[in-house]
């Protein structure tokens, strides 16, 4: 792809181009959202190289399953974000990924476990911290696990030893804080 102007299309145009398999849709989506999606992936998968592979996989899946996107159920970005998150979580839980991590030397492995257990951030994503540090720690932990770490809310409840309803409420409170900042 020659260094051309960045393409930006409206959501409607994007969806219709994607549905008729016009590559302009992928160009535009890449220009508009590759960074945001890589940000989402990088929170779950810390290794930059693996994260970028997952970003590629994400775009392939967006392209190949465009037909299954239903705009009446939600925004395009939400759909794409969940594809990216699901691929990342699958990767995180896959045997070969775990093995690859096990094969690393012990120091890295400890780091990795640490990262998975506590809520630490990839150096690349350190800037993100600010956005949630304003939250009450209770809310922040829950959002970290559900959104950043790829835990299901059921797993989060077990991990934090909280009732399921409390986890749900805390996710809501955390996102309400984000809405105050962005909406």
């Amino acid at each position, binding site marked *: 792809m020659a260094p051309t102007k960045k393409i930006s299309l409206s959501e409607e145009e994007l969806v219709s181009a994607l549905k008729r398999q016009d590559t302009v849709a992928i160009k535009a989506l890449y220009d508009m959202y590759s960074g945001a999606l890589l*940000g989402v992936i990088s929170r779950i998968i810390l290794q930059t190289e693996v994260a970028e592979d997952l970003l590629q996989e994400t775009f392939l899946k967006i392209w190949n399953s465009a037909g299954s996107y239903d705009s009446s159920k939600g*925004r395009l970005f939400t759909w794409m*974000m969940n594809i990216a998150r699901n691929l990342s979580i699958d990767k995180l839980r896959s045997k070969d990924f775990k093995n690859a991590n096990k094969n690393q030397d012990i120091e890295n492995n400890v780091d990795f476990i640490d990262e998975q257990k506590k809520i630490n951030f990839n150096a690349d994503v350190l800037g993100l911290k600010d956005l949630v540090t304003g939250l009450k720690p209770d809310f922040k932990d829950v959002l970290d696990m559900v959104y950043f770490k790829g835990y299901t809310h059921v797993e989060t409840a077990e991990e934090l030893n909280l009732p399921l309803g409390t986890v749900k409420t805390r996710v809501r409170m955390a996102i309400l804080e984000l809405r105050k900042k962005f909406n």
Partner: protein
Amino acid sequence: MEEVKAYIESGILELYVLGQLSAPECDEVEAMAAKHPEVRTEITAIELAMEAYALENAITPSAKLGDKILKEISGEEIISDPRIIPLYQDANYSKIKALRLALVACVALLAICAAALFSVYTQLNTANEQIASLSTSNDQFARTVNKLEFDKAGMENRIAMTETDEWMTVKLAGVANSPKAKMLVYWNKNNKSILINHSAMELPKTDKTHEYQLWALVNGKPVSLGVFGENAKEAVQQMVTIEKAQAFAVTIEPVGGSVNPTMEKMVVMGEVAI
């Protein structure tokens, strides 16, 4: 509505946006969103927040990644044949768009014209009704004026008759079959001419084929003094001159009058006072 509020506050919508729900749970949320607009609005707000949040925390991928992905998707052809891919596959898209716009404008114009025409039509109807009602009242007014002028002429005549000695007034009163009828006959003492005044008479109605006939009784014989109708144009009407008479009477006769009076159709009669 409390139920919807509680539903929103349960946090299920956040989990829905985060892709944390099972398929049946997703179906439930989608059914709620379809049923309650506020649920749909809430979902969109959450989506926009997460979207803004993700965009805020974007990490730019390596420079080559975009090319790699596009290659993967569209094959090698993009490199070997870097043709321009039109933004819209249909070359006529912009033309169609313009035409569609024109069509919309035409429809809008048509709607405005129809509305204007309807409004004008309504106003025209109103105006027509007003004209009709004005013309009716104008007719009534004209009739009233005519009647007033007729009465005024009659009244002036009656006043003139009472103020002069030249005229003798003969009062004709109703007879057995028309007791309420009455009428005045004016007889000039000098030239013996006879006048009747339409505003000074009350006679039974006639039909279209009959009218009134005035008679003078001269030495016991009836002499016709002429006919007169119910609706006279002038209030005062001159009849046939008679030199001598002992009495006057009015009968109802076929139009044009009769040679001899139909006695049973006599309505008023009055003797001349000497």
